[in-house]
């Protein structure tokens, strides 16, 4: 019963947030820039977090946030109120980072090499004690690099689900697919990540 109450409360809060965002969008569409500024203030952290996880560099992430909000401002008339504004924003960031990834194939290849090297270092490295290799910071670095080395479509769903903890319906709307499709994509992405970091984590437990 308490779980149900918490669920209902969360749903009510979500509804209120949606209404507030909707009202701000409406005002922004009528030319009230202060309303758009408020939307920016409300959601810039969320968008930045997601962008940072996608590009792994602060400057790039900030550029992505800026570009995402410029696109949002340009396309406010296309926003449909039935979706959450944040979902729509994340969709814009996803598209932007996908475009970036397509254009930066060379950079990605370098990053993959780098990540591969890091994994080699973690598994075959000079440090004697394998448990030491898996200290928190190093595990973070290895995972981050492995994540960065994932193809963009896998990285997107891992970030949305496992880092930002978005609900599946949200992910589905962000990706423009069904909820079942979103679940399947998340599963595949985790599988791909496990294939990259599995050997490392396996050694830790042995």
């Amino acid at each position, binding site marked *: 019963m308490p779980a149900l109450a918490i669920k209902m409360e969360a749903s009510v809060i979500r509804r209120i947030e949606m209404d507030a965002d909707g009202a701000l969008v409406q005002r922004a569409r009528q*030319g*009230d820039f202060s309303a758009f500024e408020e939307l920016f203030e409300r959601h810039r952290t969320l968008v930045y*977090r997601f962008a940072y*996880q996608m590009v792994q560099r602060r400057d790039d992430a900030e550029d992505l946030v800026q570009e995402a909000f410029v696109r949002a*401002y340009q396309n406010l008339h296309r926003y449909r109120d039935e979706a959450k504004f944040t979902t729509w924003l994340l969709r814009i960031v996803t598209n932007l980072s996908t475009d970036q990834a397509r254009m930066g194939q060379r950079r990605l290849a370098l990053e993959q090499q780098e990540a591969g090297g890091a994994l080699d270092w973690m598994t075959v490295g000079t440090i004697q004690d394998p448990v030491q290799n898996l200290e928190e910071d190093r595990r973070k670095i290895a995972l981050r690099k492995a994540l960065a080395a994932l193809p963009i479509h896998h990285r997107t769903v891992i970030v949305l689900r496992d880092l930002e903890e978005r609900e599946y319906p949200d992910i589905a709307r962000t990706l423009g697919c069904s909820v079942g499709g979103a679940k399947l994509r998340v599963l595949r992405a*985790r599988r791909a990540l496990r294939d990259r970091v599995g050997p490392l984590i396996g050694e830790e*437990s042995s």
Partner: protein
Amino acid sequence: MKRRDEDLLLKVAFGDATADEVARADGLSRDPEASRRLAELRRMREGLHLLREVPEAQISTERLRDALLRNGLKPERSGWGLGWVWMPAGALAATFLIASWVMRQSPTLVRSDAGPSAPVVLAKREPVSKPLPSAAQEQSPTVAVPTFVNESAPPSISSRRPGQAANRHGSGRAKRAAPLPSLDPGHSEEPFSSDAIVMIEPEADDATGAQRAVEMESGADVLVGG
């Protein structure tokens, strides 16, 4: 390990499994390899949670506004909306106010509505809100209850003559400013009653060098004309 079992362990490790799937995973966990794999996946999940920390963003509203301007978008500061509609409407209202103020200030020709022979007099438009003139004021020949005017209508000769006679040698400004008596027979006042009239002679005055002027007690006996 079968791929299906691996996927099941992934779901369990990341908390996405249904009750049935959890029960099936419990059955699998008796297998040491499955148990080890589940532990790996749980650690992977924990590791991902560690990645949630991100450096603080330094993107500001000003930066966004600059970016919008660079993209040719003009952020509006006010919340009025439809500003482009208000601007011409405001300009129109301002023009109307200025025009009405100018019209109030400038004198205009008016004609009393007493008939075709009504004299033309100079008067200022009175504001609508101004109270009606008192009876004493109505007696004055200069007031003559002006009505707004058909300016294109030619003034009658009878109305023109006294003014011309009285100010024959005066300047145009003097003509405008001089009070003009009414010759209208239907008018309530006496024509040329007790108001003084100044006759300006063509000869120059010896003392001043200006044209000589003679003040008359009353205009009643003055013959106007050549």
